Structure formats: C-alpha cells, structure tokens
C-alpha cells in the first residue's frame, strides 16, 4: 500500500482502471488534481475549449468502444457547462464518469466563489452521482462510479470532489479496489428462461413477424446474436436511429430505419405485423407515432435490460428483462432444442408484401443537378468514398436524418449520434473522441452549418492533438429541420430558422490550421471528397452547398399510425 494525496489517488486509480485518456478543462477547485496529472504519464489529458465538448468527446469514445469515457472539470461554471453533455449521454444510456471539482467542504453552502450544487443540478440527468466526503473514500467511490456507469443499463455518473479532498499534503493509504460492494444495486444478468421459451415459440408461430432492434443491441454488444437470429428465421429486421449497424444496413433482411423518418417498408411492416420483437429498444415516441394506433394486429415481445422500459409507453405481451446478448444466447439454445421452422409459405407471402412496399420506397429523392446538389446524394457519395466503413458522427437536423438514411451502416458502434436528446454541437467533439483512440480509422462528422457552430471552437483542440478527422458540412444556409417543420406546419413562416451572416468556413478552418474545401457544383463533389480523404494527416473540412429547399422524407404524420407518412412534399400513404 502507498500513501497518496487525494489528487494522486485519482490519477493512480484512473491508471489502474485502465483509463488512457481523460477530457477536461482546469480551474481553481480542480487544480490539485491537475497538478497530480502533471506529475504522471499514464493517463493522457486532452484539453478541450469548452467543457460541453469534453463530455461529448468522452461520449464519442464510449459509444465507439463500450467503455466509460472520463471527464475532469472544475466547480461552478466548469461543472454546469458539462450538463448538456451529461444529459446527452444519459438519454442514450452511454457510460461516463464525470469528475467535478467543488469548493472546499468547509465553504459548501456559503455561496462561495464558483460554488454550484452540482449534485442537485446534475441529479435528473445522471444514472447516479456521489460526493467525496473523505479523501480515503476516493478509490472506493471511483470504483463504484465506473461500475455503475458501465453495468446494467449504462449511464453517466458524476463525482463531486471538494477541493480539500485532494489537498497535496494529506496522504492516505491507497490500494486499487478490485471489487465493488453495493447491496442496493444488482443489474439483471439473465432473462427469465420461461419467458424466453415462450418468446421463441411465438416467434416460430408468427406469420408476419418483424424484428425491431435498438441501441441496446449495440450497447450490449449483441450484434452477432441478432444477425444469427435474423439469419436463422429469415425474418425482416428494422433498426432504430440508435440501433443502425446492429444488423448490416446492406444485409438482405434489412428494412432500414423505422419511425418518424423511417423507410416505408419498415413502418408498413411494423404496422401490418402479427408479431413484433423489440430487442434493446424502448418504444420511443419518435418510433411509435400515435401509441393508440401502434401495431394494431401485433403481439409484442420486449427484451430490455431496464424493467422500467417494459410497458412504459406500449403494453407488451411477453416482457423479458435481461442483457440482450445473454437473452438472445438463451433463445438460440431453445431454438436448437425446438428445431422447428417458421411457416415458410406465410413467410414467403410476407416478404412479397414487404418487397412491394420496398419498391415504392418514399425515401427516394430527385437527382442532383450541376447547380443543385441534393444532401442525400452527398451522403451516398461519402458512403462510396469511405467504402461504407467509416465512423460517422452527426449533429442534429436534416443532415443527421440523411446520414442515418443513406449511409448504410454495416457494423455496430460506427454510427454515433445524439438520438435521444438531439443535441446540436455533439458531432465534432464526438468524432474527436473516436479519432483520438482510432487513429487508423476514417472518422467523419456529418454536420449542418447551424450545429457545427455550437462547438466549432474544438477545431483548435483538433490542431493541438493532431486529430485528422473529416467534417462534411451539408450547408443549406438554414436551420433546415426547423425550416421543414415551419414549411409543413406554419405555412412556411420561417421564424428565425434562417442563418444569416454565415462565416466563410474555409477561411475559418484555415485560421485554425486545417484544410478547408468548398463544393458548389455537382462535378466537384466526388473528386473533392476523394481529395479530402486522401489527406490522411490533415483535418479537412468540406463545405458542401446543398439544396436549401430539401425536406426529409418519409415523414410520419403526427399522432397517426406508424404507416401514416408523407412520402414527399405532395404524396402520402
């Protein structure tokens, strides 16, 4: 055992926990910890330009790897600046450990300089938060924080660290705790075998089945088990915005995404199904549309690690609470034993019906012309240039939906977006967190000129740490998604959705020390992207001017059933 100060315990713990990078920003209450960081070389600290970005960076890393991302900030404004990032991770069940400095415990409650009640402020947007009350607790509290963040349904954990807990001259015994004790927290490890058997039998008896897979499959690392299920039954599968890549987007059984901007075949299949199995998805309102009209003829099986997700918005027939991977393994074992096969005639006619919906896919768009590039087309060219194999992050808006619809993700953990909270400003820092830890992979941020300006200062961080990611800006010179809603619901009164006074992005990017390219003409598109991706060691920012009048389709008609959709500006289902 060593004698260490609280600050040194933190850095030693992080190293012992296997943390390679932390993302943060210093300030008074965190300075003892920053000094401890300076005196070691196992944990690399990345200095961002705004604390929100530190959290999104940690989040991007966590989404790509499944491990908790770690953030360090000071008290007061440093801590409150993390809130949007924490809420983003919370909504999408992403594991984070956020270490926040706090004023010395002797000053808490006295409105001290840079004091905010971070425990109170963060409470509604964390899986858990904890305050350090004695330096000797640090190893145990941090171990609990990592355990809680990464187990069960993952989520962010905040640790509030008063400055006196890290004082350099008070030393305590440090030992890395290999185990955690938490009598009040026992995440489920296995699903109920009787329920799994029942689900397996229902699946074999279905005539019009749909597999509806969500982000839980990706977080739970259960993509292989999902693919095996789809292949074994030859059933159609649709992925949520958070689940894209869980089953290959170009796979033959893929119906693409479902929900508000889902494909016609996915939403039609759901609506007409006699059995829906939801795997790691939570019947979000952006999926179900009007809950009273949801899947009227279907019995529903729901696999979820969080019991509170069961029958929260949609009443289900067979709930199975457990980690998706283990539940699917158990289900495969039951299938092996049952050895039955689904009704092949029924399945063939179900596929025929689905293929007809596919044939009149509403997601098609008018072709680009030399002077008017369609944003969807840009994503398709991006897919081609990156061979469909890049990590793609996005911000929020039309560009996000186009990326989700047209970049066919064939692997899990490659599509990284803020699906639940819809946080503009997420894309660039998330891409940075991925590029830092995946230097040999292509990492692209697909963004809008509105979103990118919410964290554009991070281009400076990219320069400092040499992060040669690519940014593809679908520049429609508008808050496009807002404008689309105004076109559809407010007689095109474009109230504050026009982005006047846009910067010259090329010059802006160059001033940060990166390469900026601009595309206005169709014949420049592919060659410019090729050129950008050929510059392996440069961050290249490609500003592509796209059709400002384009809308995202299909689009569900609010409060209708899943298959009530606009297919384009004039046609609906």
């Amino acid at each position, binding site marked *: 055992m060593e004698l260490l100060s609280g600050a040194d315990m933190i850095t030693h713990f992080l190293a012992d926990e296997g943390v390679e990078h932390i993302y943060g920003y210093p300030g008074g209450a965190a300075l003892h910890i920053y000094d401890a960081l300076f005196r070691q070389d196992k944990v690399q600290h990345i200095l961002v330009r705004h604390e929100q970005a530190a959290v999104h960076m940690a989040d991007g890393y966590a989404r790509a790897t499944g491990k908790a991302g770690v953030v360090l900030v000071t008290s007061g404004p440093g801590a409150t600046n993390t809130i949007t990032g924490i809420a983003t991770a919370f909504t999408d069940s992403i594991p984070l450990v956020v270490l926040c400095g706090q004023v010395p415990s002797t000053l808490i409650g006295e409105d001290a300089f840079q004091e905010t009640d971070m*425990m*109170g402020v963060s*409470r*509604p947007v964390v*899986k*858990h*938060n904890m*305050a350090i009350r004695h330096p000797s607790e640090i190893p145990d509290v941090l171990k609990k924080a990592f355990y*809680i963040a990464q187990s069960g349904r993952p989520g962010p954990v905040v640790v509030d660290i008063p400055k006196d807990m890290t004082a350099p001259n008070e030393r305590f015994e440090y030992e890395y705790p290999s185990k955690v004790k*938490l*009598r*009040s*927290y026992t995440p489920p490890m296995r699903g109920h075998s009787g329920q799994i058997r029942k689900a397996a039998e229902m699946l074999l008896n279905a005539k019009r089945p749909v597999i509806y897979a969500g982000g839980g499959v990706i977080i739970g690392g259960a993509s292989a088990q999902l693919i095996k299920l789809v292949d074994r039954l030859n059933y159609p599968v649709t992925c949520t915005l958070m689940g894209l890549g869980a089953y290959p987007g170009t796979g033959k059984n893929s119906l693409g995404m479902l929900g508000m901007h889902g494909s016609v075949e996915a939403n039609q299949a759901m609506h007409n199904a006699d059995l829906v199995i939801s795997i790691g998805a939570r019947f979000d309102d952006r999926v179900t549309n009007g809950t009273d009209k949801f899947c009227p003829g279907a019995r529903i099986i729901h696999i979820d690690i*969080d*019991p*509170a997700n*069961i*029958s*929260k918005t949609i009443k289900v027939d067979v709930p199975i609470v457990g980690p998706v991977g283990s539940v699917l393994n158990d289900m495969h074992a039951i299938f092996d034993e049952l050895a039955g096969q689904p009704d092949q005639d029924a399945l063939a006619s179900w596929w025929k019906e689905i293929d007809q919906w596919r044939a009149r896919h509403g997601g098609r768009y008018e072709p680009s012309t030399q002077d008017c590039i369609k944003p969807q087309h840009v994503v398709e060219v991006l897919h081609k240039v990156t061979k469909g194999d890049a990590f793609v992050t996005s911000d929020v808006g039309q560009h996000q939906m186009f990326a989700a619809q047209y970049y066919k993700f064939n692997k899990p953990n490659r599509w990284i977006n803020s699906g639940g909270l819809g946080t503009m400003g997420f894309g660039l820092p998330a891409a940075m967190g991925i590029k830092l830890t995946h230097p040999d992979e292509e990492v692209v941020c697909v963004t809008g000129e509105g979103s990118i300006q919410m964290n554009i200062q991070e281009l400076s961080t990219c320069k400092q740490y040499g992060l040669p990611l690519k940014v593809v800006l679908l520049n429609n010179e508008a808050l496009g998604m807002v404008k689309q809603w105004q076109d559809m619901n407010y007689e095109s009164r474009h109230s504050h959705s026009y982005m006047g006074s846009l910067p010259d992005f090329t010059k802006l990017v160059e001033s940060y020390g990166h390469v900026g390219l601009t595309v206005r003409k169709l014949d420049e598109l592919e060659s410019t992207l090729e050129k950008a991706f050929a510059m392996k060691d440069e961050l290249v920012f490609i500003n592509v001017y796209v059709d400002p009048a384009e809308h995202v389709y299909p689009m569900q008609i609010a409060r209708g059933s899943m298959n009530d959709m606009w297919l384009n500006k004039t046609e609906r289902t």
Partner: protein
Amino acid sequence: MRRIISVLLENEPGALSRVVGLFSQRNYNIESLTVAPTEDASLSRLTVTTSGSDKVIEQITKQLNKLIEVVKLVDLTEGAHIERELMMVKLKAVGSQRGEVKRTVDIYRGQIVDVTNSVYTVQVAGNSDKLDAFIKSIAEGSVLEVVRSGVSGIARGEKVLSL
C-alpha cells in the same frame, strides 16, 4: 387508486432528494411522505402515499427501484396492511365548547395533550380517513392549526420489509 409505497433507503445525504426529485421530474403525485431512520442506522424507511393509474404506479415502483440508494420497496396496498397517521390540532375551546370538544376527542379516541384558557391541543392517531372525519366533526371556525405526520404503514401478518 391510492397507494402506500414503503421504501428502505440507504441513509445517505442526497438519497431523499433523489426520491422527491423523481416524483416531480416524472410528474407523479405525492400525497404524503414520511421518512425516518430504522433500527439499522444505515437504513431509512420512507413511506409515500400516491395515486395514479395502474400503469403509473407500476412506473413509480420501477423508477424508484432504479435509484441506486433504494434497497427494497413494497407497495403495501397490494396486501393486508396497517396504516397510521398522527395529527395534532389546536382548537378554540371556551365556555360550552370545552365540553363538546372533549366529547368529540373521546369519540375519536384522541387525547388532549395541552390546555390553556381558550385552547386545547389535541392529538389523534389513525388512518387518514379517521383524521379527516375528526376535523369535519369539529365546529367550523374552531380549528386554529393542524399538523399531520403523513402516513406510515406496515404489512399485516408475518411479512416484513427488511434486508
């Protein structure tokens, strides 16, 4: 439907605010809330009375269970149980009122626990309906102050809520 949910909670700073925060965040309703330590110093026992559809109640219990500091909980209203609430009331008591108040207190098996020339302080215990009925039976205008503890509850028989 009205429900009484009993919770064993880690006796830690902030745990109570998490429970209360959950109710306001998710728009659940709290009719009463009591909390105090148990014989095990590391645990608090919290009783919350709430109401809502079955779906809402199911969510309340599940969301409470998700809080890391919630060790165990039970919906007492699912089985036979005993509920009690303590009320203290200051009542105007002058002249003929004094005898009348005394009689009413006796009927409700309450006790007069403090007396002045013009005021009785009365203590009544029982389930919430009984306390409501007591207040109703006092002549209008005589009630000066009411304080109620909120409901505490326990299951009947051999069932216990413990670790």
